[in-house]
């Protein structure tokens, strides 16, 4: 009897899938573009506004306090008469610095750990995974608080704190991708040719494993911004007088009743940049591989 694969079934599935992915590819590209625009706006604000008037964000009494948005102060002023737009700009800069720094840190450390776990002995793999399990047993915000408790508040500490919370996620993604890559025949072929392990790892396994991580990076930045804002909001993050969006929200609360803009402005500012990165990450994920689901939030 002939052994034949009935490819008509496969064709049905392929037709359906191509129909779905055409529509979702378009939607995901729109997502990435919209997200990109939002992020670009935030980045431009962060870069350009402070160049116009570097002192505006801390200039107490430069204008009457609690002025709603208007021609003189595009986003209004806060309770000390400081221009909100200037403060948002600096806040964006700090949030972006911390978030990108944290994600970079976690990608480097997590990526190395993941690669190590995937390519070393199973004993080392087990050890690394157990340690990661312990780290993952802490809710993200609480772990960050623990780090802040140990090292004090401040921009660098925040970068470290948030970076640490991301390491297990990045490590897991890298490890899974690396494990899959090591199973590929061309890796076996390379090893059989006598290629040195280290070379194999860095030239073949590493690049393939980082692919999924890069896709995650945008969403991780969004989460990092949220974590930083949350910590600053409760007073455990960036310290005054450095402006931070979370801090602006928290100090503005006392004046919310008389001037809602004092909290609406930072709230919408945070929303804008987080939404931007989330859309980019989301769109990238659907675009590059509709099958994969988000691992981080």
């Amino acid at each position: 009897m002939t052994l034949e694969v009935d490819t008509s079934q496969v064709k049905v599935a392929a037709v359906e899938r191509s129909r779905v992915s055409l529509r979702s590819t378009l939607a995901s590209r729109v997502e990435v573009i919209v997200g990109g625009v939002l992020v670009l706006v935030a980045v431009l604000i962060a870069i350009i506004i402070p160049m116009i008037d570097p002192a505006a964000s801390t200039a107490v009494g430069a204008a009457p306090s609690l002025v709603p948005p208007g021609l003189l102060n595009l986003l209004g002023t806060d309770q000390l008469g400081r221009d909100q737009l200037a403060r948002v700009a600096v806040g964006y800069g700090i949030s972006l610095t911390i978030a990108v720094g944290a994600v970079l840190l976690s990608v480097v450390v997590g990526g190395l750990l993941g690669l190590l776990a995937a390519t070393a002995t199973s004993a080392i793999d087990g050890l690394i995974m157990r340690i990661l399990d312990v780290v993952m047993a802490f809710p993200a915000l609480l772990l960050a608080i623990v780090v802040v408790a140990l090292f004090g508040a401040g921009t660098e500490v925040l970068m470290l704190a948030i970076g640490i919370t991301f390491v297990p996620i990045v490590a897991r993604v890298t490890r899974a991708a690396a494990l899959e890559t090591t199973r590929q025949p061309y890796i076996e072929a390379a090893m059989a040719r006598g290629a040195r392990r280290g070379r194999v790892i860095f030239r073949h396994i590493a690049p393939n494993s980082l692919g999924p991580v890069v896709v995650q990076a945008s969403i991780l930045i969004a989460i990092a911004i949220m974590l930083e804002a949350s910590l600053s909001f409760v007073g455990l993050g960036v310290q005054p007088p450095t402006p931070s969006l979370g801090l602006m929200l928290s100090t503005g609360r006392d004046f919310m009743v008389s001037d809602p803009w004092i909290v609406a402005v930072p709230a919408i500012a945070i929303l804008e940049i987080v939404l931007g990165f989330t859309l980019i990450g989301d769109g990238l994920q659907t675009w590059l591989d509709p099958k994969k689901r988000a691992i981080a939030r």
Partner: protein
Amino acid sequence: MILRRLALTVPILLGTSTIVFLILRLVPGDPAASILGSNATEEAIIRVRAELGLDQPLWQQFVSWLGGVLRGDFGRDYITNQAITEELAARLPITIELAGIAFLLALATAIPLGVVGAVRNGGWADRVVRAVAVLSIAVPDFVFGILGILSFALALSLVPSSGYTPIEDGLLENLRSLAIPAIALSLGLGGVLARVTRSAMLDVLGSDYVRFAKASGFGTGAIVFRYALRNASIPIVTVIGLQVGYILGGTVVVEQLFSLPGLGQLIVEAMLARNYPVLQACILVFVVAFIFANLITDLLYAVLNPRLRKVGAA
């Protein structure tokens, strides 16, 4: 298999409690000195250190602390000298109520929405579900909280803008004081749940066994709810476990924003006052809760997925 999972929990509990314990021991500054203040004498400091057991070797301190915790004794608050356990007991119910409502709210809205999105895949309902889900994920809980206060509390006066009303003072008032905080807290979990439900259902609805069920004459309703949802619940349950952590962490911010006297707020107060024993105790409680939540979801996962059970019936 279940036993193995339970056994794994123990080292994780040990590891996390070690880290939590180390907070107190690694922070800069001498606890005794900070209690006594700057005018303390050398002998007073030594005396207080002995009282607090700080002169013992580190591992011994850890063991006695752990022993105390297992007995329910978290030590004493540095500042008020109250038994920490009492403070925790007073605040815990509030956080449990808040987190519990948020959790149930997320489940009750996100799962049906996800199912609708999958069943009406490609239609306008699906697009709405996906858009709402993305927004829920992207809007930080305290941003929603503030916008909620501005609109529902201040503008519309539907709910109080802050503060907690205990149940004894009226159930309706109690729920009103928790309404916006709970919704804000539920957003993150809800958004992710809606998406996972939708994609899991889409997978299942496109499967061979659903097609076979259709060919066997089962109706859409029965297929979707009784049959397919059961298969989709496996990835859903997995995600819930991970997201519970965000709800637990979120209580810190939300309680602070709405002045709810729960554990989350206590963490912030303790941090700002350098009240490390209290901080330790609170974090330990949250971490243990998270570990057990994950344990439960892992066990549920084994129950729902017959492939993971011990090979018996055959």
